[in-house]
């Protein structure tokens, strides 16, 4: 444990990792409530295309990837919710198309410019000052939007027609949620990579879903699970020399299983008490 905190690499990774844990867990509540996990898969793969564009046109990596992710999220989501296009089909198109575009663009770039392994599986241990500033800015924007819009998003997830009929600008709220989810995806790619990002955006709220009653509790529990899972995951990754992103996602998966098992136990005990 003391070795973990003594390591300069781990100490410098802590702030970005916690920022990602906090933002991802907050947005994960809405990802589950609005069933957006397909969107996070599609957008995380579109990040590769964004990075390819950044490398090709010598643009800053993370801001370009963010702009691409937000644009893709804004384009994809309304297509799905207005015309009822099959989610699997749309995600498949994005999944394959964006990956293919990214691979073609990156293959033409100098191979030292892009850490492909880090992109695919995440690398929170190498964070430049520019990346750190970008992460802080993005986390600030996401959390501000979340705190402002959470109740509206929650109300729409429960009953969108009633929310619209009471005057809530549902389309605006939805577009904001998709944009914010896109931005969060890019943050998560830094920690968990394109392949594992959906885990960070689903697992925290999934763990909390068994216990939370209402938005406030669900959010707080989701935060707790996410920050705890991220810290434990980073410590295990340091101790065992495992890839950090994958270890964090594995830890969150374990927490989900424990949370689910605990909820089952409580439910069984409650029904046994009622029957006696």
């Amino acid at each position, binding site marked *: 444990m003391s070795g973990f905190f003594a390591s300069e690499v781990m100490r410098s990774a802590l702030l970005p990792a916690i920022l990602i844990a906090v933002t991802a867990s907050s947005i994960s509540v809405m990802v589950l409530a609005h069933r957006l996990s397909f969107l996070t898969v599609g957008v995380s793969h579109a990040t590769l295309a964004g990075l390819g564009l950044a490398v090709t046109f010598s643009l800053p990596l993370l801001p370009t990837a963010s702009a691409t992710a937000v644009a893709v999220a804004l384009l994809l989501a309304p297509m799905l919710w207005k015309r009822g296009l099959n989610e699997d089909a749309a995600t498949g198109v994005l999944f394959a198309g964006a990956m293919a575009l990214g691979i073609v663009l990156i293959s033409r770039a100098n191979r030292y410019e892009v850490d492909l392994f880090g992109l695919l599986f995440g690398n929170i241990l190498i964070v430049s000052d520019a990346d750190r500033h970008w992460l802080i800015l993005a986390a600030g924007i996401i959390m501000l939007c979340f705190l402002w819009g959470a*109740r509206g998003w929650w109300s729409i997830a*429960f009953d969108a027609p*009633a929310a619209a*009929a*009471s005057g809530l600008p549902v389309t605006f709220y939805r577009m904001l949620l998709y944009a914010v989810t896109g931005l969060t995806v890019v943050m998560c790619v830094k920690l968990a990579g394109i392949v594992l990002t959906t885990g960070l955006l689903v697992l925290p709220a999934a763990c909390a879903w068994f216990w939370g009653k*209402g938005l406030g509790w669900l959010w707080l529990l989701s935060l707790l699970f996410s920050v705890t899972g991220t810290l434990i995951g980073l410590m295990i990754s340091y101790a065992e020399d495992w890839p950090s992103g994958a270890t964090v996602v594995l830890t969150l998966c374990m927490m989900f299983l424990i949370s689910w098992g605990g909820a089952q136990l409580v439910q069984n005990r409650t029904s046994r008490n009622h029957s006696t």
Partner: protein
Amino acid sequence: MTSPVLEVSHVCIDSPTGLILDDINLTVEAGHFMGIIGPNGAGKSTLLSVIAGMTSADRGTVSMSGEVLQRGNRQRLLKNINLLSQMHDDGPRLPLTVRQIVGMGLADYVSPLWRRPAKGGEIMKALELLDMTDIADRDFRLLSGGQKQRVRIARALVSSPRLLLLDEPSAALDTQAQDRLYHLLRRLCDENGVAIIMVEHDIAAITSYVDSVACLNKRIHHHAIRGERIPEHIWQAMYGSHTHIVAHDANCIGCIQGKAP
């Protein structure tokens, strides 16, 4: 003279396959309880959606308290109405208590998280109206279909709307609960001056409670007030030639008196 709560004027909705709504005209005063009946695909839910500002009319206008509903005043005017849409069981199963769901219907619910949540007084009043105070802290996901529907109705009532739009509210309710609901809606009209438009399939069930019935099948074929008979050709235009309507009480709207078996 005060303006009617709702005025629908010459509203038309087009679709590539033809008109969905054709020249709809309706006026609803405060305290008026209107039933809308019609076959499947008649445009009943679409009409509610136009009134609720969720679908724009291709032609015609919707006015509330004398103001035509448009982009600039939409948010303000819609604060006075509430919609209970048809119940579907395919939504996400959010972990919420009954109390929290009813609270969602309050006008100031959608405030930022840094503001304190609304006070519980109105929530308990709405739950009392539906006899549901004893399950205020129960998990909504564990309720029966009928209980869920009553919670949704309490949510629609909690903000004391001036106009209430109900799309088949009695679905999933047993006969007793249906009667209690219609009785409550009638009371809201009489005592609180709430105007109600309710889409239902079963005219016989609502006829003792509503003030008028609009027969809709893309256009309004007939608008019957209490005590008025709906001519047989109207029924046939809406439902087909084999329709046979019978009276079930003296106040029945639209029924053919004296033909009960």
